[in-house]
């Protein structure tokens, strides 16, 4: 009798029993995977077999599609190519000019880096790879690329595009690799805000959004600010573009909630670059030619675009007409600000504050007050710069404080921390009295170049 009832029970609940058995088996399998996670990126064999089985097929499909597309775009559909070629040539000419200017700036930056002992990371070699697949679900943003260990790919290598970083390699097979993009919820990238230099961690989310975390809520973050890699994760070289800040709102736990749009188009990636080697080296100042004392001083002084100078000149006229000082910086009336506006205006602030906006040569007045100028490092720099208009009697002094401030602001904005350190180093020199600025010749007009290529901080250009 009990046997019959058992049969009846099994027959009646057969479907449910099967369902429970299948679910139970899968839950046990989940528990086993959680209990025994694979170490250091190893993956389950069944996954490798499955992906390896379909990867060649997908490679063939993707490459044949590329071939057909290339056949069409390279040989058949050439409409407008001549015009595009002409436009591109013009663009190249423009970029050559731009390149020359940037090269000069880069050389200057490298010299300063060499002086300060900064190490630079260079992307030495990359491997181009084709994206052949995704995880296929919204919960995971994994990408598959068609290059694997046979091409020199290893785990934790950075994956980038020319526009920005993509992610890192998390699993490698001989013929394919898995990339964890920066918008995956398990991703984390050391990132920094480009202008304010605030550092945080860029994390992804399940919905594909990327947020910059661990920046205190009392910091000011402006939408539109660029985000770059900080190099702190030891995967991405420092300074690669990450994205742009979209919004910054106070979040929980005293941190800002900063949303970032990735610079790389992560949802339509087709080709990526895997960084296979990063070298770290010191920039060699000797390769850059002899460094003159005037160059060192010139590096301390921010470059001002020509347009700004024109504005400053225009403002100087207003100052000569007796424009009253507005705002906080009466010191900005220093005409030295025209020659080297930024450091002058900021540096001469303490001393020049007594001069008032209507002073004709307030920089000289500022220079005549060495105690005030030597109280702070910037004041020293300002005092030194304050001599500029004396030696350079260019009539472009900014009489208007507002205009001088306007010229000071971008210069401060563009002045990297490196430059500040240089000033600090100079201030550490034990002979503050040599900063009698009024007696110094103009730095840019210094006729005696210093012979040293890598002078110590104390090796300032001697008057």
């Amino acid at each position: 009798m009990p046997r019959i009832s058992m049969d009846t029970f099994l027959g009646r609940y057969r479907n449910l029993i099967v369902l429970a058995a299948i679910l139970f088996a899968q839950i046990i399998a989940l528990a086993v995977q959680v209990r025994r996670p694979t170490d250091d990126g190893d993956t389950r064999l069944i996954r490798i077999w499955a992906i390896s089985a379909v990867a060649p097929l997908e490679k063939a499909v993707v490459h044949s599609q590329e071939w057909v597309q290339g056949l069409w775009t390279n040989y058949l559909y050439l409409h407008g190519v001549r015009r595009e070629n002409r436009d591109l040539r013009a663009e190249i000419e423009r970029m050559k000019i731009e390149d020359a200017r940037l090269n000069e700036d880069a050389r200057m930056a490298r010299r300063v880096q060499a002086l300060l002992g900064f190490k630079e990371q260079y992307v030495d070699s990359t491997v181009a790879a084709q994206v052949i697949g995704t995880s296929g679900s919204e919960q995971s943003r994994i990408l598959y690329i068609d290059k694997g260990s046979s091409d020199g790919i290893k785990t934790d290598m950075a994956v980038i595009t020319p526009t920005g970083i993509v992610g890192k390699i998390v699993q490698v097979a001989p013929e394919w690799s898995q990339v964890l993009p920066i918008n995956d919820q398990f991703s984390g990238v050391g990132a920094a805000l480009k202008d304010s230099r605030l550092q945080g961690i860029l994390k992804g989310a399940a919905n594909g959004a990327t947020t910059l975390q661990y920046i205190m809520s009392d910091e000011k973050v402006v939408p539109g600010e660029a985000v770059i890699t900080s190099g702190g994760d030891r995967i991405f070289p420092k300074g690669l573009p990450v994205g742009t800040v979209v919004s910054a709102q106070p979040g929980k736990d005293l941190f800002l909630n900063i949303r970032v749009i990735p610079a790389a188009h992560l949802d339509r990636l087709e080709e990526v670059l895997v960084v296979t080697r990063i070298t770290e080296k010191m920039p060699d100042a000797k390769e850059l030619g002899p460094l003159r004392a005037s160059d060192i001083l010139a590096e301390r002084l921010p470059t001002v675009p020509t347009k700004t100078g024109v504005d400053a000149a225009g403002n100087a006229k207003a100052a000569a007409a007796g424009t009253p000082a507005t705002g906080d910086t009466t010191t900005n009336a220093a005409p030295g600000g025209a020659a080297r506006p930024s450091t002058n205006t900021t540096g001469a602030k303490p001393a020049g504050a007594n001069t008032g906006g209507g002073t004709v040569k307030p920089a000289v007045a500022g220079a005549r007050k060495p105690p005030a100028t030597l109280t702070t490092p910037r004041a020293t720099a300002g005092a030194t710069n304050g001599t500029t208009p004396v030696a350079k009697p260019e009539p472009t002094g900014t009489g208007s404080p507002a205009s001088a401030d306007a010229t000071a602001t971008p210069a401060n904005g563009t002045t990297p921390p490196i430059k500040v350190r240089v000033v600090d180093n100079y201030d550490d020199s034990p002979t503050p009295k040599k900063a009698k600025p009024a007696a110094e010749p103009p730095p840019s007009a210094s006729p005696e170049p210093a012979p040293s290529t890598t002078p110590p901080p104390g090796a300032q250009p001697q008057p």
Partner: protein
Amino acid sequence: MSTRAMPFRGSLTSREQLSVYEFSWPAIIFIPLIAVLIQVFIPVKVRFMPIIDLPFLVTIFFATARRNPVTGCLTGCFIGLLQDLFAGYNHYLGMFGIALTVVGYLASSLGVKIDVENPGSRFLITFVFFGLEEGVYYGVAHGLLRQGLQWSWSHVALSGLANAVIGIFVFRFLDRFKQR
């Protein structure tokens, strides 16, 4: 036409008999496989593809066509595990498996009760079961595995609508593989 007539057994529709379809073995094996491969590889070219869950649609189709809860949950388990294989880093094998097993079982159980041949009922079934699948997946990920997934009602609803619309066409296409 090897359609078997299923006895009434409490059908909720006005039809006295519901058709139970069968499929050839190649169709049973290759249709889910192709669906998973499309799901994995098409999003490279099509941006919105991850919203569409082809393996889920195939599971619903097979489950409702066969009207057998046991084969329904076995089909769901097979397709879900196949999807798990390609889901990549930090995705445990069985997450989609469990979700689609439940969906397959319930869809086939429902297929016994109601007519699932017309587009309206297909639309509703797909929409409802998509929410169910997302819920089970979220429950497994959050409850069992302590993964910090975010649940968004609006996103689930929109994705469900998109899958329900696409499902009508996918089901119509897959109807050709029914053996009659």
